[in-house]
């Protein structure tokens, strides 16, 4: 019952729309099943399975809107949820920014669902955890990890002719492996749509090696260094920057994408079409991407196409809302579900080999904004930070706090490696010059 076929979802939503008396009605139906296993101190700590199916109904009279949701699906419950949303709509004040719903859309076909992920059993999860734990025990190390897989569908229908349906599967794995004396720590993460690509033993071997290699870390003075950021290290800064892409806040003067106009000066309010980064920076979204596919529609059912966001270092597009698009006389640009940053062909190993002096960063942690107008962020390196000299990792170094902006990062590119999937997006390893570390941390 939790995962409905396209036909069953359509039948159910058609019935719900039939109960509506509102001017406009939109229904979202989402189902998901999943399981997880968590381990620490080389033993399983918790495990569980969840499944859920939820229907949300948004009813609108004029510009008054109400939303209600339910997880019961008999006719009386369906009728009740429609009535509740209509009652709330009548209580709500008018929203002057309300925009009419979209009509019928044409969607790309995405490749987001894999049976292999749908067929994972508790025994598979236990085995995957054991494959990660046993090598650690053998090497006198301590493993703590988490594996979670989900399979779900999403369907949207409104009374203007729109119907969207997509199934997706996802598996996330991460493990921290520490030396028993607490002096070394390594970490790795993997995410796939297809469970069969996950090899927890192989992934854990990387974390194990980093743990063993990171003991007896030396201190380097804080300052500006050339760094090689693994994808897990740069994805946080890049993701924060892409989340800040928004036309409205740019037009209103409260974004790093705002143009600072002098009083009385005329010109574009935002930086659309302006070069802000190194010309090797290209970021786009593509629901049909081979390795990081994503749903071909936005939360309101509008179709998503391949879209450039940064092209040759130039701001190519900014997401907006239907209201802001109309107000600013622009096309509606929906937010994508995942990003792809292009890179080169070099592997991480090649990038290290081609580095005379630098620092390899496994991941960045506790990233927080310091200044939204310069996108200055702070945070720390974690779980494997190494000094590189003449193409080789020379020794582990103590963790640093950084204070840096992704705008600076994407202007100081020395090299980009082969992109890897991380958190559902594609990010290359990046070699960056003059990356700012502001202080040392004793944390391992």
């Amino acid at each position, binding site marked *: 019952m939790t995962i409905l076929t396209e036909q069953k979802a359509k039948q159910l939503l058609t019935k719900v729309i039939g109960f509506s008396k509102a001017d406009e009605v939109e229904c979202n139906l989402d189902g998901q099943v999943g399981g997880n296993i968590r381990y620490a101190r080389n033993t399983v700590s918790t495990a569980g399975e969840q499944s859920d199916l939820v229907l949300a109904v948004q009813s609108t009279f004029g510009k008054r809107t109400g939303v209600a949701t339910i997880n019961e699906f008999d006719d009386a419950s369906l009728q009740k949820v429609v009535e509740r949303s209509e009652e709330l709509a009548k209580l709500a004040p008018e929203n002057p920014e309300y925009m009419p719903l979209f009509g019928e859309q044409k969607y790309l076909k995405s490749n987001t669902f894999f049976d292999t992920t749908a067929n994972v059993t508790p025994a598979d999860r236990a085995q995957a955890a054991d494959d990660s734990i046993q090598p650690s025990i053998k090497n006198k190390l301590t493993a703590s*990890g988490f594996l979670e897989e989900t399979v779900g569908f999403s369907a949207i229908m409104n009374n203007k002719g729109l119907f969207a349906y997509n199934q997706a599967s996802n598996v996330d794995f991460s493990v921290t492996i520490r030396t028993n004396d*607490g002096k070394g720590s390594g970490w790795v993460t993997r995410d796939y749509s297809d469970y069969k690509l996950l090899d927890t033993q192989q992934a854990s071997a990387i974390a194990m090696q980093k743990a063993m290699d990171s003991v007896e870390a030396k201190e380097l003075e804080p300052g500006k260094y050339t760094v090689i950021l693994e994808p897990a290290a740069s994805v946080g800064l890049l993701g924060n920057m892409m989340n800040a892409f928004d036309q409205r806040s740019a037009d209103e003067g409260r974004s790093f994408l705002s143009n600072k106009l*002098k009083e009385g000066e005329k010109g574009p309010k935002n930086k659309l079409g302006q070069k802000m980064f190194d010309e090797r920076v290209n970021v786009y979204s593509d629901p049909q991407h081979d390795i990081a596919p994503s749903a071909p529609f936005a939360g309101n059912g509008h179709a998503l196409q391949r879209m450039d966001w940064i092209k040759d270092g130039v701001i190519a597009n900014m997401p907006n809302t239907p209201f802001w698009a109309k107000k600013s006389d622009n096309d509606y640009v929906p937010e994508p579900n995942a990003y792809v940053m292009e890179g080169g062909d070099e592997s991480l190993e090649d990038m290290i080999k081609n580095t005379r002096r630098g620092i390899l960063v496994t991941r960045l942690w506790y990233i927080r904004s310091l200044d939204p107008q*310069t996108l*200055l962020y702070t945070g720390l390196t974690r779980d494997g930070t190494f000094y590189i000299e003449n193409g080789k990792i020379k020794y582990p170094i103590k963790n640093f706090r950084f204070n840096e902006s992704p705008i600076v990062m994407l202007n100081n590119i020395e090299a980009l490696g082969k992109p890897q999937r991380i958190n559902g997006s594609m990010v290359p390893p990046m070699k960056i010059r003059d990356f700012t570390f502001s202080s040392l941390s004793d944390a391992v």
Partner: protein
Amino acid sequence: MQRRDFIKLGGVGMGALTLPLSGVAVSAEQLLDKPMDVAYKKKLADIALNAAKAKGATYADARIGRYLNQFVTTQERVVDNIVNTESAGIGIRVIANGTWGFASTSNMTPDSIAKTAEQAVAVAMANSKFQTAPVKLAPVKGVGDVSWQTPIKKNAFEVPIKDKVDLLLSVNDAALTNGANYIRSILFLVNEQKYFASTDGSYIDQDVHRLWAPFFATAVGKNGFKQRAALGNPVGMGFEYLDGREEDKIKIAGAGIGYKNSYDMVEDAAAAGKQLQAKLKARSVEPGKYDLVLDPAHLMLTIHESVGHPLELDRVLGYEANYAGTSFATLDKWRSGKFQYGSEMVNLFADKTQEGSLGNVAYDDEGVKTKDWDLVKDGILVNYQATRDQVHMIDQKESHGCCYSQSWRDVQFQRMPNVSLKPNEKDISAEDVIKDVENGIYIAGRGSYSIDQQRYNFQFGGQLFFEIKDGKITEQIEDVAYQSNTQQFWNSCAQLAGKSDYRLGGSFFDGKGQPSQVSAVSHGCPTTRFNNINVINTARNV
């Protein structure tokens, strides 16, 4: 957590704050429906406990929960959203073969509950293959049938929607007419109706209320923009917190107003508008060493990050290693009895009993009576925060009562209780603390915060910064953040205000665990001085 369980608020200063919104949205009047009869809850809980025991569980507890939320969000002159949610179900936790097992369901028929209990036992049995040491529970004596309610004066769920909308739009108007260009204001209301039963013989019915009313205002100037968030706090109180009584206002000459047991949100928004204009013109701080005077609405977060988290026993032991991290406050440091966490005047305590605090309950989510205890006494590390299955690892026999789950659906585990800094026994004021400072900065409100995974190195910003020269606040400054090391920082604590200045701050959505769960926690403290702290300038040209 599943993506659809969250609403996203792209608010000023919040980045894109995601809020847990699990549950079924219902109309306002339905939130006031009578909760399920206690006798019926007891019958359902007994079905769960008996089914678990019949399948071989040596211990079982059942939590029947009805969780109500109401969120009202506005920006400038527009109400964005009014959302009511309700979520009800049962979570059953068991020990079988010396191993924990857990299962939950929203289907509350007797048959479904019995099956869920059996599923929990099956999970325990399956996981016991990988268990290296059996679970050891600290004993708890059953308390029979008891009940408790957050001491509220005005049930926030009974306040008409119109009054809430009017309040938030007045807040927005106050900010916009005093210098802000944009503002987002929000009301979060939470009511947890929790029934706990265990094979120890406890049947505990609790009705817990919490409230948070933040705003985030922005002003745009010729050379950029500035932001200012509300100085009110999330609380374990009813709507009376928003009465803004005069006796709860603490005035600091040259720096504005702090709020104690109630909050004047409109007044704070008006101040925010003016302070935003001052921020646009303010001098950028000269980096260097300063004596810092930290107001409670700011220091609460420093306590949370540098004392609350590192003294969670599950972090110390390594159970959170793959997510939030471990802790510098290791068992050997605690066992030495000499670890100088802070200066001698630093006394930090934990509790879930302070009235008005977010952690306030009579019993935790595994039926342990709540209490208060010392964490750091006269500067020395003396204890941690632990649950029933952990205290034996620190040679103690009684749980601290720190178990919590965000809903019936999720398994309960160790969560931070209120962690607070004791005020000076001499009842001196915040202004008394400021008057002895020659070259310092007074910081108010919580800002950017970042700390490493073992809680050594941290960097904190704030909402408002004022220069102190020769004991007086002189001017508003900008771009301030301080970097320090936890032990160094607390050992530089040089003065505390007294109990009249003691205020509770808090965190409404503190995240921990995999899958991640949120909890709400308060931190009480007076205005406090820390000497010779490294201040950096966060302005940068890009």
